[in-house]
């Protein structure tokens, strides 16, 4: 009998060019999608070394990281030095003939949002980008991970990477999600449970009935944050929902190729009896809307919970790290988190700026105004997402509530930390993004992570708020 394989192992095996020994393999890369920040450095390296791009048809490029998101934007960006980057990347991608989704391209957007939206990433393919959140697209059953600039050069030059094979971990989400509990709450809950290093050296498959009932958007949110517990990647088996999603996408296969691809995609699931090195089981009935209080995604609690007390932590080094987080965020241990006043909110990023995210937030915002003095920004994940949201009147709901309705890009998840447009020191910002690290959204900014509905609810009240309380 054939050894039962995990989903990860099946895709991995189909991409092995060579077993180099020592659990190390030469792996074929099917899609190499680069943005201007890592990509410009890599293309500079390629050009300096006089190397050629081996498979230019398997490479794609987009502008997303340093762009301005104000309406009517051009190459000028608030990030110091960013404009030069935009122009250099454009020039270098053009010189190599790489398909670029430029600022004015109707398909521009955040790379991890547009890759599935356009059908550039597909189930069962290997996919890399010079960005840690590349694992997002594991949500459609791709084997995807972020890499550094030198590895990007390696892929440009060889269409391969040398990789050690990670171990297998599975997280099973049983039960059903409660009212106003979303994919973001599931993943924050998991990270709080296993810790920010809980997936180290593992490729993680997310499985179980609660995953299967998620739409593609939610699956992408889950896998987006796989890197936030230091996994090698996250992946979800492709099913009917995934296959329906790709049908008719611009870069997805058509006709006979589509038929052939679907037959292959149907084989992509973990076999019964496949061995996992680590397994975690979660009952979704236990998950409440989540919010983070500290400077790591592992510092997540229920929205009606309390800021923990570091002195309760026995391990000395864990306690030190926690005390530092408490001191950075300026919160008192024991404070109910829903009493924390917020100065600004952001709905956007590769985590939570897809159409369903905007729809859910708009449902909460409809007929409300944001709190006095609150700054509220929404940046849809792509032009396509923005167009579709506008056709449903979602932009009007956001604007009438007092939100700025922006163009797409990494925006306030990245810009503030890069010295561009951000929030002010000491401000508490509730954000649909994936990182609450020190200074991530601007020097001294205290970022709290939550789902789009929790962010929308809190924008209305001015403090961190349980979304189930709005409309009561």
């Amino acid at each position, binding site marked *: 009998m054939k050894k039962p394989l995990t989903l990860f192992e099946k895709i991995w095996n189909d991409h092995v060019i060579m077993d180099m020994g020592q659990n190390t393999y030469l792996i074929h890369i099917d899609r190499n999608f680069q943005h201007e920040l890592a990509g*410009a450095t890599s293309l*500079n390296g390629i050009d300096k070394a006089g190397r050629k791009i081996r498979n230019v048809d398997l490479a794609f490029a987009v502008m997303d990281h340093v762009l301005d998101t104000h309406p009517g934007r051009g190459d000028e960006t608030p990030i110091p030095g960013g404009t030069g980057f935009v122009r250099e990347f454009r020039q270098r991608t053009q010189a190599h003939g790489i398909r670029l989704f430029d600022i004015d391209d109707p398909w521009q957007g955040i790379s991890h949002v547009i890759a599935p939206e356009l059908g550039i990433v597909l189930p069962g393919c290997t996919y890399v980008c010079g960005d840690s959140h590349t694992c997002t697209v594991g949500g459609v059953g791709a084997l995807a991970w972020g890499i550094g600039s030198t590895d990007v050069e390696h892929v440009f030059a*060889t269409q391969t990477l040398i990789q050690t094979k990670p171990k297998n971990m599975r997280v099973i989400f049983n039960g059903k999600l409660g009212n106003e509990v979303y994919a973001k709450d599931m993943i924050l809950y998991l990270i709080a449970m296993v810790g920010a290093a809980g997936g*180290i050296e593992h490729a993680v498959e997310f499985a179980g009935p609660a995953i299967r009932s998620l739409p593609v958007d939610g699956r992408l949110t889950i896998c987006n944050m796989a890197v936030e517990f*230091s996994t090698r990647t996250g992946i979800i088996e492709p099913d009917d929902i995934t296959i329906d999603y790709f049908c008719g996408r611009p*870069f997805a296969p058509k006709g006979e190729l589509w038929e052939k691809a679907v037959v292959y995609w149907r084989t992509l699931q973990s076999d019964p009896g496949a061995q996992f090195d680590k397994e975690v089981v979660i009952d979704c009935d236990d998950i409440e809307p989540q919010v983070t209080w500290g400077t790591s995604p592992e510092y997540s609690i229920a929205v009606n919970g309390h800021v923990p007390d570091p002195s309760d932590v026995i391990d000395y080094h864990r306690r030190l790290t926690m005390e530092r987080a408490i001191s950075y965020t300026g919160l008192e241990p024991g404070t109910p988190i829903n009493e924390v006043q917020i100065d600004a909110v952001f709905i956007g990023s590769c985590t939570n700026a897809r159409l369903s995210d905007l729809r859910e937030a708009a449902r909460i915002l409809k007929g409300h105004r944001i709190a006095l003095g609150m700054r509220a920004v929404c940046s849809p994940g792509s032009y396509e997402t923005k167009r579709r949201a506008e056709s449903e009147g979602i932009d009007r709901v956001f604007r009438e509530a007092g939100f700025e309705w922006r163009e797409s890009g990494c925006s306030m998840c*990245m810009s503030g930390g890069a*010295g561009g447009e951000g929030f002010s020191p000491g401000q508490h910002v509730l954000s649909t993004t994936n990182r609450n690290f020190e200074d991530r959204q601007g020097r001294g900014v205290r970022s709290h992570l939550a789902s789009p509905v929790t962010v929308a609810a809190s924008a209305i009240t001015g403090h961190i708020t349980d979304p189930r309380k709005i409309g009561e």
Partner: protein
Amino acid sequence: MEKFTKITGIAAPLMRRNIDTDAIIPGKELIKVEKTGYGDGLFGQWRYIDGNRKENPDFMLNRPPYRDAVILLADANFGCGSSREAAVWALTGFGIRCVIAPSFAAIFFNNCFKNSLLPVILQDSQVHELARQVEESDGRGLVTVDLEKCQVIGPEKQIYPFTVNDIYREMLLQGLDPIDATLRYESKIAAFQEKDKINRPWIYQY
């Protein structure tokens, strides 16, 4: 790539968990296409009091003898977060050649080997023991990292063996360029694609 065989020098203990790459090199330092010139930005938000690079005297790497550190000791999950390779270039730019921690985040770990920065994994208790010994000597107790023998020698001369993937180890010992090394396998890559175009044609035609 610069070779790595053996180093002896000052080790700086920065014993925090989950030190992310945003902390190692802040986003605002990233806006250049070169791979050098990041050393001054290392731990920028912790190391400097303001945007003019006024040093924070309390930050360890601003104090002697740690200013001259060649080894960094850190707690678990070092290098988590963003894939920015500039985190590695900032460490090497400052003069760090080796980071010793109980665990590393994968992207950072991989990036190290492409830049002759050696990430050494020791047990939790061993890293903390090393840190304690370094602190007790006010940083003057030197640490040796020997990649040929795969061992760390602490200030009190105790030996901590470590393991490292042989393929990566060879690359560091010989200073091999990883792209040149892979290009030797071009015929294997071509053969793979030839077959793959039949098995999975939709990957190559769209």
